[in-house]
């Protein structure tokens, strides 16, 4: 039990720290690498929630496939570091950051006071629901239609990416 709490705080600290580093680095490559670290920490958190399948596709799809795409595009465009993080002072950014801090306070307030309205914890059942077997069973029975629609979505994404990124032919 105490190991679980220790793991949560370690992975949570890595997750928040790497997210902060991702937002504040000047070089896009460093940002991408910190985002990969953040995805690994999230994968660890999913494992601690007994969601094994989600943890593995988090590492495979997010940290593997999507972030490779990002790093590939950053290197393809050959972007240098930004000169300064904040080229010009602007009230829009201050107001935006202040408002998002307000939203954070609101969310924390809501979560902290929602305790009484939650149903009782079913955490001991969680080991059974996150397995590949159970996820696959649900995916091909209850969620079969959304799963099939996903293939159309991916086809549209492939066609769209090819059309958008190709050179003009004239």
């Amino acid at each position, binding site marked *: 039990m105490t190991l*679980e709490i220790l793991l*949560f705080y370690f992975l*949570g600290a890595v*997750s*928040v720290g790497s*997210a*902060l580093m*991702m*937002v504040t680095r000047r070089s*896009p490559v460093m*940002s991408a690498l910190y*985002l990969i670290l*953040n995805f690994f920490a*999230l994968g660890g*958190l*999913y494992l601690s*929630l007994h*969601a094994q*399948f*989600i943890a593995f*596709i988090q590492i495979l*799809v*997010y940290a593997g*496939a*999507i972030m490779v*795409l*990002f790093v590939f*595009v950053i290197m393809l*465009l050959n*972007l240098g570091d*930004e000169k300064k993080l*904040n080229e010009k002072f602007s009230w829009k*950014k201050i107001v*935006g950051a202040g408002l*998002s801090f307000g*939203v*954070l306070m609101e969310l*924390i307030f809501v*979560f902290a006071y929602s305790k009484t309205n*939650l*149903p009782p*914890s*079913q*955490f001991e059942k*969680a080991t059974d*629901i*996150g397995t590949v077997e*159970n*996820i696959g069973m649900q995916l091909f029975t*209850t969620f079969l239609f959304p799963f099939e629609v*996903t293939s159309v*979505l*991916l086809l549209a*994404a492939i066609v*769209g*990416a*090819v059309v*958008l*990124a190709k*050179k003009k032919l004239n």
Partner: protein
Amino acid sequence: MELQSYLFLSAITFIIGVVGVLVRRNAIIVFMSIELMLNSVNLTLVAFSAFLGDVTGQMLVFFAMTVAAAEAAIGLAIIIAMFRNKQTVNIDDINILKW
């Protein structure tokens, strides 16, 4: 471990993503911040799924990841097309649709 801890963590990560979108001017970093926000919502869904004993949250995360993969491919293609036309990824220089 309590459900609230995971919700606080995902709220903090989500807000870091929001600040990234609002403050940074590099289109690729704005895009990565959006991925960060998607991931923090995924953490909320998995936490609820584990603590309520329901598989629906994890299915939703699975579909959110599919959408994120499609979105990353399209978004990066748009950034490449933009860079080809304007030679920049700074979103302050790409303002022909702004008022």
